[in-house]
């Protein structure tokens, strides 16, 4: 069903799968921030609006949260509980097959995206928030970590 309604835009689930297809997403903070950066910096024109808004730790999207749960139900990703609060997002074969097929419909510079994801992964949680806060200060108005703000 989802194939028919998507048309020529990438949605949140696609972006999650593109990232997990490169490597696991380490935790929920990284899920939100990496999808946000991918959307803003690489796939903005080709994606539907992901409804990010300023929240406690910068940009947050309920859409992405719901899509991750939806993908798990479809068996396209596994959400592995590493501890009480840390969930790791891992793509499955089904998800990999699906996203590889889907990406054929778009012009996506995967080399740049892979390099960017590797670079984002080098951050700790604080570093990731600092990068997002620095580059997108408009999403920091409600932050619970004001010390990470630059302005």
């Amino acid at each position, binding site marked *: 069903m989802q194939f028919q309604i998507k048309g020529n835009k990438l949605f949140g689930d696609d972006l999650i799968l593109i990232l997990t297809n*490169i*490597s696991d997403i*380490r935790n929920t903070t990284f899920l939100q921030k990496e999808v946000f950066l991918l959307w803003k910096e690489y796939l903005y024109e080709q994606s539907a609006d992901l409804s990010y808004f300023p929240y406690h730790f910068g940009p947050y999207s309920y859409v992405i949260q719901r899509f991750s749960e939806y993908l798990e139900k479809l068996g396209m990703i596994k959400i592995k509980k590493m501890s009480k609060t840390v969930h790791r997002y891992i793509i499955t074969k089904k998800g990999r097959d699906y996203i590889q097929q889907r990406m054929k419909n778009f012009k996506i510079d995967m080399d740049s995206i892979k*390099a*960017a*994801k*590797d*670079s*984002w*992964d*080098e*951050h*700790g949680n*604080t*570093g*990731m*928030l*600092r*990068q*997002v*806060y*620095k*580059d997108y*200060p408009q999403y920091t108005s409600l932050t619970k970590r004001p*010390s*990470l703000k*630059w*302005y």
Partner: protein
Amino acid sequence: MVLSVSPGDKDDSSKLTILKIHSSKGQITTPMRTINRNDVSAKDAIGSNIHLAKTAKSFFYEVPLNVNDVINILNDAKNFDKFEKKIFDMMDRFSNSGVLFFLYFSLTNEAYADIILKDWIKLYVHRICDFTNEIGLECVILPTFNKIKTVAEVVQKHDLQFIPKINLKNDFSLVEKEMDEFEKFDCSNSPLLAINFCTYLDAKDQYKKIIKKFDDWHERNKAILTMGAERKLQSCDNVSGIHYPAVIYGDLIAEKFGRFFGDTDNKNKKKTKLLDNANNLRWFDRNGLQFSRIQEVDVDSFLESRKSGIYGNSATRGLLIRIATNQLTLDDIKNRRANALNRIDENDLSRPEFEVFQKHISNREVTFYKNSKKELNDVLKKHFSS
């Protein structure tokens, strides 16, 4: 075994050999840059998007151990737990980048002496090897404790590759003995020798011995890697240098300069006040491999030339201007942003230079490259003739 070394081409004029280090993560060619926790912390502090692992394909993770840590570890292996999470986290960050991860438990002088005096060597090595196996690494860097054979035997029992770490500042006869022992080890069990970085002037004989031994070691599929190489050389020579590049798995070394903003006063354990000298902050200049003082740089043209890089963002641009005009904010000082930006900037600028250097080595033009760096060349000549 996971690591193996094979010599590549040799430049006849410079007599430098390119080494290929094969690992389960892929192949690394010397000379190769390394990264460490300081680079990662600087990246986090700035929120920089610089890709550290792009050119540096190895990561040294150094865990300091004091006497109490050692006693705890020796009493119960479970006491490694306090390090485990941080180590895993760091390994996780670089797991996709093909980075070769080296873990090194660095002992304080007291801890090192205690291990030797109280005859804890075997137990200590045994504990470290158990832990290394547990976290899935296949090679282990260990100090020799002046008993390199004993340490090697314990390591081999754990089916790990042993990377002996020798201290070049030790007495020459001791260093020489350990190097000779290393040479005898089978290359599949012990492919690399780690040395702590020190300047040529501090360990002339030791370096001469290394230089003499290079060819032999390479033919035996062995290599050297430097640890703890400072980005800024502490020498008073006003030039940066590249330290025995193609043979030592090393890094660019640059000049050490004065204290930075917001340094911690070790005695009083509090932040010193903002130093009145942005004068002490120097900036890496790739063309001369030197540092130029930030005040001597025209900030506007500097920013203009770098706007597609780390200064493409108004936050980092603003920080640089505040540094140059001595107007750092309390937030900047508290978060040590000047230090972090300097390190990131040095990374950003020196990496392309390092790539040029690597390319010259690949093309066997390293002599030409050295000659193009006049000041560097003068300093190296001076070192070798002294």
